């Protein structure tokens, strides 16, 4: 019997090459390509007066300099708004090179091509750009005040405004026995993969075809976008994703200015070109996320049950909106977590500022929503003197209420309906894992030893596996080797392994016979991309469906060859055999040969399929009307709507009574992403997410000054967690299968990061005894809060009936 691979923690098949230095990342390609570098704006907002290249022209090795004036046709137009939305009334995107105005530090102004990167940067240094600085709009307050504009034709700096309502929340809150109002803020962070972006383009003038390699999360969509921009037929453009050194969201955006310009110039020059983003460029010229301010009004009863929830929030989208308003839309919907909110109203404004544009970073608006909701749960518990876990339990949607319809619209434009989940069970598991009920005793012991500790928890629900579709092609070669191709890309998630597991199981072949190709439009042309924890659900399901078709065809052909009933056949270890009679078997490679009736033979295997090889049935054509040659199939998976994974995290922190240093002592995760294809890979995804969650809660922020200069655009100053900042992570899995897809899986890619700020704010608050309402929090901020709290200056919660409109805490 072939062993079942689904659910096995097998080692990754991509690792032998990656651990030995044999990976092929973008900057490893095209050793003879010319190098590209960019002149980027040093100003947050300025008019470009002139660009003087005189001094640059005598640099040895210079090949070309381009500015906006050189662009023509569709390349000169603004980049696409990838996800239009009816509420996005004023979308604005950048031009590939600045067209007269720059709107953030780092915006590309000129492009240089030279023999190598050092020379290209020499040239950049010698290009003199004259700017007339304009007032910069930095931060949510400045954007709202709209004293100055980011875009001349958007007077209120507002890109979008959206309201969603279920019931009458203000009335429900007004009528509730208890009410609270909170102001909760989160600062910017960024995906910050270890490998930045990069593009390498080759133009074949004779063939009039373009091949582009990009460190992207979507090769197929980039291909269509490039064909449009460069005005080439789609079949003249190929996009290949090599090994990618992490994405975490930022590489789903496309086409980046550089992704348009590098191929465009490669065509013009008839030369191979490569651009590799450096770290500073990644800080100022890619994308950020997380910055939001939330005002939560909540009404509840004496048991802590929600009666109404009214959330207004302000989303800083930076200078442009290429990815639409997906991030705030996700916050607005996923804020609800595992709870029934009573009546719910949410409103947001998406605001322009003269900072780097905002597009999804792992979690994509969920960390903010969960933070807002979970801080609210803690505040309710505190107000009523009820245990924090109990308040949550009382508001949970119960397993028997699944599927649960929130009556809202999710980010995919489809109804927000949770498919499955057992929240009470997960909470019980988490309390057990972290020792929730014993913590009081632990705290006492710590206190006696002069230590200050706190415990926190947070719950989330995550819509994963969003559509519209993914596909897969599965082919059995005459050697018996199976090749699986799927269009979505990989950035470290182990797709070569998990899709091979799925295919090997579905076909009944050893995994060593399966090869998986991802992110190469030459191999699979239609796909959406790798984001929103969708790969396992979408491509995993598509691989299972396509492999199922191949299996059916193999059985059908083998049944004829073996003169057996198809119902009596099974595929075991790469051969079709009669159940209970393994002697009557035919290898899949042979079936593949038979599947392709040949006129010409080129080896012993193919000789089996030639026209005189066997007693051919002369009463019907060699290939039936409804059949195709070859043992291969393509299928697509397109779900009715997203599937909802969920989880609960708890953390124990210690805060230093003197220095306010914050240390995470324990971090516990209960995680339910349905059936696990490879538990080891899922655990790895959770580990990495948790580390980013801790980073976002305690260390990472993008610090802009009032002029829109990013003050910490290096790894020296933007603090990502090292090993010393990440504790051991304890994980328990629940597996509630999704009823929506053939594998019963839900996505896992983003989960770990989502509740990070919520759970650590909860734990720090518990240790300190005062409200934490701004994240991330550094030791010096905590120390300052202590001082303010000691002098009574710390803000108290308000009853929203007291005062309106809200004045800001200013903390």
């Amino acid at each position, binding site marked *: 019997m072939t062993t079942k691979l689904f659910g096995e923690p097998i*080692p*990754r098949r*991509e*690792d*032998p090459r*990656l*651990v*030995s*230095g*044999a*990976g*092929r*990342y973008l*900057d*490893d390609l095209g*050793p003879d390509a010319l190098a590209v570098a960019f002149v980027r704006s040093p100003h947050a907002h300025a008019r470009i007066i002139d660009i003087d290249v005189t001094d640059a022209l*005598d*640099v*040895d090795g210079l090949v070309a300099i381009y500015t906006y004036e050189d662009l023509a046709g569709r390349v000169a137009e603004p980049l696409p708004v990838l996800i239009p939305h009816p509420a996005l009334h004023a979308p604005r995107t950048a031009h590939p090179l600045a067209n007269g105005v720059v709107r953030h530090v780092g915006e590309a102004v000129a492009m240089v091509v030279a023999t*190598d*990167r*050092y020379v290209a940067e020499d040239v950049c240094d010698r290009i003199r750009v004259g700017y007339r600085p304009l007032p910069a709009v930095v931060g949510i307050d400045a954007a709202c005040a709209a004293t100055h504009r980011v875009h001349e034709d958007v007077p209120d700096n507002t890109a979008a405004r959206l309201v969603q309502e279920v019931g009458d929340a203000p009335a429900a809150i007004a009528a509730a026995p208890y009410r609270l109002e909170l102001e909760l803020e989160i600062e910017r962070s960024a995906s*910050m*993969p*270890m*490998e930045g972006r990069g593009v390498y383009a080759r133009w074949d003038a004779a063939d009039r075809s373009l091949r582009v390699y990009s460190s992207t999360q979507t090769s197929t969509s980039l291909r269509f976008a490039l064909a449009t921009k460069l005005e080439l037929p789609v079949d003249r453009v190929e996009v290949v994703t090599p*090994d*990618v*050194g*992490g994405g*975490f969201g930022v590489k789903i955006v496309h086409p980046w200015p550089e992704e348009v310009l590098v191929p465009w110039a490669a065509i013009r020059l008839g030369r191979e070109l490569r651009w590799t983003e*450096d*770290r500073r460029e990644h800080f100022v010229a890619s994308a950020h996320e997380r910055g939001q301010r939330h005002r939560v009004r909540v009404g509840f009863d004496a048991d802590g049950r929600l009666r109404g929830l009214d959330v207004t929030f302000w989303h800083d989208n930076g200078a442009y909106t290429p990815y639409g308003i997906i991030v705030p839309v996700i916050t607005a919907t996923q804020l609800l977590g595992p709870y029934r909110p009573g009546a719910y109203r949410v409103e947001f404004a998406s605001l322009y500022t003269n900072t780097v544009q905002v597009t999804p970073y792992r979690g994509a608006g969920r960390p903010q929503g969960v933070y807002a909701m979970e801080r609210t749960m803690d505040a309710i518990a505190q107000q009523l003197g009820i245990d924090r876990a109990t308040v949550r339990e009382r508001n949970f949607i119960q397993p028997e209420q699944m599927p649960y319809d929130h009556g809202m619209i999710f980010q995919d434009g489809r109804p927000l309906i949770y498919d499955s989940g057992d929240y009470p069970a997960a909470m019980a598991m988490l309390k057990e894992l972290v020792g929730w009920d014993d913590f009081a005793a632990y705290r006492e012991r710590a206190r006696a030893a002069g230590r200050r500790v706190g415990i926190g928890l947070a719950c989330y629900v995550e819509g994963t596996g969003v559509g519209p579709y993914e596909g897969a092609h599965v082919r059995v070669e005459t050697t018996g080797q199976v090749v699986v191709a799927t269009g979505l890309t990989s*950035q*470290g*998630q*182990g797709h070569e392994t998990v899709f091979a597991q799925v295919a090997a199981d579905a076909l009944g072949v050893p995994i060593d016979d399966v090869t998986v190709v991802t992110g190469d439009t030459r191999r699979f042309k239609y796909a959406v991309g790798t984001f929103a924890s969708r790969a396992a659900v979408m491509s995993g399901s598509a691989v299972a469906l396509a492999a199922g078709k191949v299996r059916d065809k193999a059985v059908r052909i083998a049944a004829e060859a073996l003169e057996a009933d198809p119902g009596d056949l099974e595929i075991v270890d790469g051969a079709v055999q009669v159940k209970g009679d393994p002697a009557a078997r035919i290898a899949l490679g042979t079936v593949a040969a038979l599947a392709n009736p040949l006129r010409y033979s080129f080896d012993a295997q193919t000789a089996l399929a030639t026209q005189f090889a066997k007693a051919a049935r002369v009463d019907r054509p060699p290939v039936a009307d409804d059949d195709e040659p070859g043992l291969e199939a393509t299928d697509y998976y397109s779900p009715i709507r997203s599937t909802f994974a969920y989880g609960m995290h708890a953390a124990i922190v210690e805060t230093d009574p003197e220095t306010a240093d914050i240390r995470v002592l324990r971090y516990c995760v209960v995680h339910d992403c349905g059936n696990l294809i490879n538990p*080891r*890979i899922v*655990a*790895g*995804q959770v*580990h*990495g*997410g*948790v*580390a*980013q969650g801790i980073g976002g809660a305690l260390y990472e922020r993008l610090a802009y000054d009032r002029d829109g200069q990013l003050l910490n655009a*290096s*790894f*020296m100053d933007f603090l*990502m967690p*090292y*090993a*010393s900042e*990440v504790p*051991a*992570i304890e994980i328990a899995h629940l597996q509630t299968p999704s009823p929506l897809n053939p594998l019963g899986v839900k996505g896992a890619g983003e989960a*770990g990061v989502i509740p990070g700020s919520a759970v650590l704010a909860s734990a720090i608050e518990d240790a300190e005894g005062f409200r934490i309402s701004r994240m991330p929090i550094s030791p010096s901020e905590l120390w300052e809060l202590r001082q303010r709290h000691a002098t009574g200056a710390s803000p108290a919660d308000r009853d929203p009936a007291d005062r309106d409109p809200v004045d800001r805490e200013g903390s």
Partner: protein
Amino acid sequence: MTEVRHDVRLRVNGVERSAAAPARRLLSDFLRHDLRLTGTHVGCEHGVCGACTVLVDGRPMRSCLLFAVSVDGAEITTVEGCRSGDGGLGPVQQAFLECHGLQCGFCTPGFITTITAYLAEHPDPTEEEAREAIGGNLCRCTGYVNIVASVLRAAELIRSGGRPA
């Protein structure tokens, strides 16, 4: 404005290599683009992430902070040279594979060289020491949990003669 090039000779992974490079050429670029050993990765070009770590005369150093000309004549080991004697995976590489110590793999070469040098001097680290040993390298994918496990597993493999148990 033509740059002067200097002959740089290195012994890389046991093989004599040389190329002409301008004085400002970083060792990382020299290895990657002049010698075409692209296993060494560049994550920050300012000495913080450790992805570019190679062994220079046995000591881990950040190749993005060194000029190639400044290490002329040195013995360099890159991730490509961390294989076992028979050309299979070396013990640290094997441990990363067994423990799922990598995801995207971009940081991995720097960890493998760093850990190789560390274990040569500390064959039997505790978990805490293992964590400290990798304390100067950034990984954005793994949360380090499985990298710590990989250090311990690699130590075990080396103690048992470099072969997977």
